[in-house]
């Protein structure tokens, strides 16, 4: 993975001191809270319901062992001994004190980490496929260009005061595991007819009040041109994005208002100007230099089958279940990609304790894993595990309570912190997702239901990505009472779609039953081989709606 040189290292140190000075000035009153807020947001620091919250960048979801250990240290020293992984693969701590944050930033700098631009109206953390470098069918690892974009966008002098936040994601396979079409800029690495590798650039995706799937703006942008192209997009947005209404300020509004053709035209005018200067051409040697950091480990020459693995599947039912859902085929023979679910039944989705962080780091140490990944679905991934090591790795995960065999199943829920933590929330999300998990805890039933992606947000800001859920749940405030709306048919994959609102919402004592009725409706309506999403796309909302609300009406009598 990328390693800082002296320049990167100095940047994060100086940034920490810059923030220390900002805190000093705030405490003295030389900065008002209105002035300080955007500055602290650019260092990932929110003021939430109970306390501050610090969001730490995990670039393209990749962590080294010592970084995981340092996060555990910070969790113990400055926080309540746990952290939370987000839908943008970042880490959040819920209890830091403002006065301690500059010190925390230095602890992070010690392990080449930072909180730079993890919030605020600037370019945020660049995310990528969490199976990068491991999955078959990948044109190339999406992370080198992600790292280059990270550096390009960090402390960008022109684009640090955009109309609103700006999120970029990169994918390199046909299957989109990075939800690129839900981002402000989504980059798909493709090959053109001439066999050259380049980028298809989508612009204008986003969640929130007005969800949109991104539109294709750049059909094929070359590697040398990509930074100039991104600059052109950011410039058009900075100049013409709306600043009159915070709910209409994302680039998605501009793109959909102008239409793809006109937006593309404006971008290309700017792009041509930038090319004239020649200052943003990406030298191939620079890309190669960064690619070298992401070279995969030397894979051993192993047989496809592993007797240790097969024996464990036969002997250990828990291992067999885990292997069924939490393993993905690796491009190298004899290897597997292992998903570590952070969705224990009845526990807070995406949370991880300091002990668990250390435990994961220790597994990495013992098995020679140089990286662990964070997915936007709030799980961890060991990308390169020898099949023969899987039983031993599983045993270690089990001892840490990190072996829940539910990757991709209905209890693998994405959920934001919601009203339990967040100042913006309208309703709690965590207890609902826990209750849904408990309702569907039976593993056999989960397997029968197959892939169902439930995504839940505690407010319209949609940090839980509910618009992209096969079943999306949105918490709202109905006259001071928590209330929940169901959406169906969203997708965050390459077939990106916005979920459709089903109908009137449900109270917190009704919502789990309502979700179960949705699921029962799917079971009734499905044809062989269909996931819930497929059934919904085939039959539409009406049959689901009828069953969910008819049952509710009957129950009322």
């Amino acid at each position, binding site marked *: 993975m990328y390693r800082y040189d002296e320049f990167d290292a100095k940047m994060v140190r100086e940034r920490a001191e810059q923030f220390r000075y900002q805190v000093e000035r705030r405490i003295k009153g030389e900065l008002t809270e209105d002035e300080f807020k955007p500055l602290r947001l650019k260092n990932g620091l929110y003021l939430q319901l109970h306390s501050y919250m610090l969001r730490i960048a995990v670039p393209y979801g990749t962590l080294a062992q010592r970084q995981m250990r340092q996060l555990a240290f910070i969790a113990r020293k400055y926080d309540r001994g746990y952290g939370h992984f987000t839908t943008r693969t970042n880490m959040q701590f819920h209890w830091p004190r403002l006065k301690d944050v500059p010190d925390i930033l230095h602890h992070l700098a010690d392990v080449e980490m930072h909180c730079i631009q993890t919030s605020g109206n600037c370019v945020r953390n660049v995310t990528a496929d969490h199976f990068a470098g491991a999955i078959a069918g990948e044109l190339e690892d999406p992370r080198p260009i992600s790292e280059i974009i990270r550096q390009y966008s960090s402390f*960008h002098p022109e684009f*640090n005061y955009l109309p609103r936040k700006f999120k970029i994601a990169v994918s390199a396979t046909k299957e989109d595991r990075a939800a690129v079409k839900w981002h402000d800029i989504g980059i798909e690495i493709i090959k053109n007819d001439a066999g050259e590798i380049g980028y298809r650039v989508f612009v204008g995706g986003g969640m929130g009040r007005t969800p949109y799937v991104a539109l294709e703006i750049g059909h094929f942008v070359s590697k040398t041109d990509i930074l100039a192209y991104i600059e052109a997009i950011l410039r058009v947005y900075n100049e013409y994005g709306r*600043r009159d209404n915070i709910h209409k300020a994302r680039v998605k509004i501009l793109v959909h208002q102008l239409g793809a053709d006109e937006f593309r035209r404006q971008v290309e005018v700017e792009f041509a100007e930038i090319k004239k200067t020649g200052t943003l051409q990406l030298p191939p040697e620079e890309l190669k230099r960064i690619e070298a950091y992401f070279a995969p480990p030397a894979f051993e020459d192993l047989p496809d089958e592993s007797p240790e693995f097969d024996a464990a599947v036969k002997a250990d039912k828990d291992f067999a279940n885990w292997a069924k859902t939490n393993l993905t085929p690796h491009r190298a023979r004899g290897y597997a990609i292992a998903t570590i679910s952070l969705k224990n039944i009845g526990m807070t989705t995406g949370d991880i304790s300091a002990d668990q962080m250390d435990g994961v780091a220790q597994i990495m140490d013992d098995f020679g894993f140089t990286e662990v990944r964070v997915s936007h679905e709030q799980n961890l991934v060991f990308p390169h595990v020898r099949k023969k090591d899987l039983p031993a790795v599983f045993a270690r995960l089990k001892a840490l309570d990190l072996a829940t065999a539910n990757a991709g199943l209905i209890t693998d829920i994405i959920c934001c912190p919601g009203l339990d933590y967040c100042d913006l929330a309208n309703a709690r999300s965590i207890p609902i997702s826990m209750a849904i998990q408990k309702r569907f805890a039976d593993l056999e039933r989960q397997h029968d239901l197959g892939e169902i992606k439930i995504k839940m947000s505690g407010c319209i800001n949609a940090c839980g990505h509910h618009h992209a859920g096969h079943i999306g749940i949105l918490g709202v405030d109905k006259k001071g009472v928590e209330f929940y709306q169901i959406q169906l048919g969203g997708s965050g994959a390459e077939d990106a779609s916005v979920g459709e609102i089903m109908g009137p919402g449900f109270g917190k004592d009704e919502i789990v039953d309502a979700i179960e009725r949705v699921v029962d409706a799917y079971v009734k309506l499905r044809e062989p081989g269909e996931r819930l999403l497929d059934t919904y796309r085939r039959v539409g909302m009406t049959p689901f709606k009828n069953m969910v609300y008819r049952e509710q009406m009957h129950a009322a009598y």
Partner: protein
Amino acid sequence: MPLIKDGKFVQDRFIFIPDGQAFPDDGGVMVTFDRFQSECATLIAHHRPLGVRLAASQNPEVLKDDLANIDAIALEFPIFRDGRAFSWARMLRQRFGYKGEIRAVGHFLYDQLAFMMRVGFDAFDVRQDFRIEEFDRAMREMTYVYQPSTDGRKTVMQIRRGE
């Protein structure tokens, strides 16, 4: 308002004359774009230091054919979060090669000064209590830069490549 240029407080060469108000007999004046447009010929014929003040929503390309006659362009920050002027300054310097003064006016923060210098601002209309040492400090907060801008500073990529 104190004016900073070249890292020190300087006398303002311009007086901002609101629309409708008469100009003084001589000395530099700064006017709105509307006034510049309607009285362009008179203003230029007077051969006095001339500044034009643009609102945040005004794309400076409206001035592109007159830049040779404009000594200073003031770009407004209605609120510091409105970052359009960063792009306008960059456009003036880089696209149009403007060599005159680009001045930041309105509400902006110490924390934006370094970025503003990078994109082409060279004069700053600062708060009454602004201490000049702060300007110097702002310029020194970050030693390196990742991306090219109008200041021509070497980027980290260039340093790494030995350029």
